[in-house]
């Protein structure tokens, strides 16, 4: 099957990291001054070389944003659909993606970091499947293959078998805070990304991994039953599509990226910030927090969920936190992390946690320790 790939490289991705800048956004001049050299092209080349000979049609950008790398990898006959300037920016990524989509790309293969992933997402949302070749300083989004070679292997599979797609989170990282040693992330959105469970997992796990949507439905159905069966509790449903599946079962219109409150199966409040949560928790009603794993790093609380401050969490009680995740997500995250910003609270979760992974099924997962916190 001929596959049309929109291919782009963020030429400056990763340059900041090499010279200790923890990110490149807004700092390209400083990175170059410190002697940084473009790295992304080399990584993109490593992903492209194994693809020679496959029935692929590339749409790309001029120069270092795609064309040069394709030629170095031995490809000819591709379409340069976007003329990139000498110095590229986020706008160029977005413009190229817009053209890829309009020219019928089956997949956008980009090389960059979280910033590039965010720009791709902002343009195509979940309309075109996206796969990242890792080259940035920070790669907390779940859209990246483990290595450039792994990206190539996934494309190989896409050519020979029908694509198996899953949702992958795009997360925002506050680069300024990151440079000061604090990882502050926020869920930005979801793209669709190809995955190959058979590539890395044994046959047993393939059963559960084949259908993310079915797993979410199972989780949604189970937790909806629990919520209906415990009218005495107020439930805070955290961000993400897994928790949204619970709301769907309840017939509630939940925000994708926010914390929403549900009581007796009815939506009480949407998109709560810390203050909003404290307001709701100040009553007598006992509360439970239902939360999923954010990003590709196994983070349960902390990354992307700063609304749940230590004060909020103390009022809820760590025993009232219910963690949910699909089997596929869990297979990618050997350790889970609670990073509430308060070590005592983190420790209260113990050494392992039971994660609801389907209808009437959970998985026991080990909890890792993060050194940050007060």
């Amino acid at each position, binding site marked *: 099957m001929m596959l049309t790939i929109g291919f782009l490289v963020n030429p400056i991705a990763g340059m900041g990291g090499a010279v200790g800048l923890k990110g490149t956004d807004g700092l390209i001049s400083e990175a170059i001054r410190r002697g940084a050299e473009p790295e992304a092209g080399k990584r993109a080349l490593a992903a492209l070389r194994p693809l020679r000979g496959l029935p692929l049609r590339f749409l790309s950008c001029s120069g270092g944003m795609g064309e040069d790398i394709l030629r170095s990898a031995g490809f000819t006959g591709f379409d340069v659909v976007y003329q990139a300037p000498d110095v590229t920016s986020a706008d160029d990524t977005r413009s190229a993606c817009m053209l890829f989509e309009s020219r019928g790309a089956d997949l956008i293969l980009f090389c960059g970091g979280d910033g590039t992933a965010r720009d791709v997402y902002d343009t195509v949302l979940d309309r075109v499947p996206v796969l990242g070749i890792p080259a940035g300083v920070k790669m907390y989004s779940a859209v990246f293959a483990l290595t450039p070679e792994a990206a190539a292997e996934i494309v190989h599979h896409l050519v020979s078998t029908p694509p198996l797609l899953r949702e992958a989170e795009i997360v925002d990282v506050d680069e300024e805070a990151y440079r000061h040693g604090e990882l502050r992330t926020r869920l930005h959105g979801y793209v669709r990304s190809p995955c190959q469970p058979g590539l890395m997992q*044994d046959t*047993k796990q393939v059963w*559960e991994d084949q259908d993310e949507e079915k797993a979410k439905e199972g989780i949604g159905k189970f937790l909806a*039953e629990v919520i209906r*069966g415990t009218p005495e509790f107020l439930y805070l449903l955290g961000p993400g599509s897994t928790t949204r599946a619970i709301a769907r079962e309840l017939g509630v219109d939940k925000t994708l990226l926010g914390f929403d409150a549900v009581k007796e199966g009815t939506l009480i409040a949407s998109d709560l910030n810390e203050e909003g949560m404290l307001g709701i928790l100040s009553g007598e009603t006992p509360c439970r927090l239902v939360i999923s794993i954010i990003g590709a790093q196994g983070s349960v609380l902390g990354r992307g969920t700063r609304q749940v401050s230590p004060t909020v969490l103390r009022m809820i009680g760590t025993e009232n936190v219910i963690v949910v995740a699909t089997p596929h997500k869990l*297979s990618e995250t050997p350790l889970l992390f609670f990073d509430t910003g308060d070590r005592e609270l983190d420790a209260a979760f113990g050494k392992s946690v*039971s994660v609801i992974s389907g209808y*009437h099924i*959970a998985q*026991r997962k080990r909890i890792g320790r993060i050194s940050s916190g007060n």
Partner: protein
Amino acid sequence: MKTKIFLDEEEMPKRWYNILADLPSPMDPPLNPQTKKPVGPDDLAVIFPMELIRQEMSPDRFIDIPEEVRDVLRLWRPSPLYRARRLEQALKTPAKIYYKWEGVSPAGSHKPNTSVPQAYYNMKEGVERIATETGAGQWGSALAFATMLYDIECTIYMVRASYTQKPYRKSMMQVWGAECIPSPSTKTNAGRAMLEKDPDTPGSLGVAISEAVEDAATHKNTHYSLGSVLNHVCLHQTIMGLECREQLASVESYPDVVIGCVGGGSNFAGISFPFAGDKLTGKHPEVEILGVEPASCPTLTKGLYAYDFGDEAGLTPIMKMYTLGHDFIPPSIHAGGLRYHGDSPIVSKLVHDGVMRAVSYHQTEVFDAAQTFARSEGIIVAPETSHAVKAAIDEALKCRKTGEAKTILFNASGHGNFDMSAYDAYYAGKLVDYEYPDALIREALSRLPKVP
């Protein structure tokens, strides 16, 4: 000091032990799924030979093993009892650990202890074909072996997850002349209904039982055969515990703790019922009996003691037992033989009455234990058996703390030679520690399992 304790072939038990005779209170009767009235022999005659039905309900303490059956059992019985001295040394425990090694049977597990008499009684009644289910393939291969001996056709519905994971079990069944079909299949109404509900289902023992029962009930020349759960199956397996008691007596010993893994309960029943009988009759009131199950399918530890169907489609008699609900599909752990929503009614009653107790473990920790066992005793056990190994090791480690020199007996019910993909997954760090979130399930609106 002996490492292996043998009995002569002539010392092999001549009678099975029927614990029903020693129960302090009667069992709640199985009920007909249609009438909800107690099942009578006639209800079962469609799918079982009359002698097995008699055994199922017999009040006799001992039941003779036919000489023709003993003759076949002599191929591997009496099986050896090992003193696990190297394991004791590895654990630095004062405990004395013994294990009954059932991996010496042709099928590699304890299952032929009942498949042979079941096939024999069917042959005596002129049955031409038997349908059955199998979880991990241990039972299927054992029945394939037994039906071959008596020239009976055999069709085996193998739980799909195991069919994929353990292709060589299927090969064994073929060698012995049986037909092996992945379940759910399109051959039965029960299978088709399940596939319609979920085309990607890994299957379950509950569904496979429905298929085999339906097959037997809809073919005149066909009977059904079950590898666990039922009273007569537990009865046949008592040959293991009876041999153990003799073997231990020959070295002037008696166990403080008896351990077996539990799926449907027959392996556990087989090793423990003779000792449970000693406990019930006051001969050894102190003996502790421990069933070990997976945390992903914790029937005895987290299930409800209630009447429920033995299968997914509700075709079998309704039995009083510990259950997670007959519609519960356990996750695809490697110990496929322990993926059963219910349990033997006798084992359930004994646990409920406090004669036995149960524990559950996660998948990874039982493989840790199996590795410890393989690296000390040499034998690579089946994933099911590794649950018993884990509990035995934990008991021995408790002894290390307390300084007690307890005698621990466990049933090494089968070898893991066809389970190396499970060990591969273990070494690749890919085992998933599934568990049953019982607290939340009890809160859910569906609340407790749907029992009739």
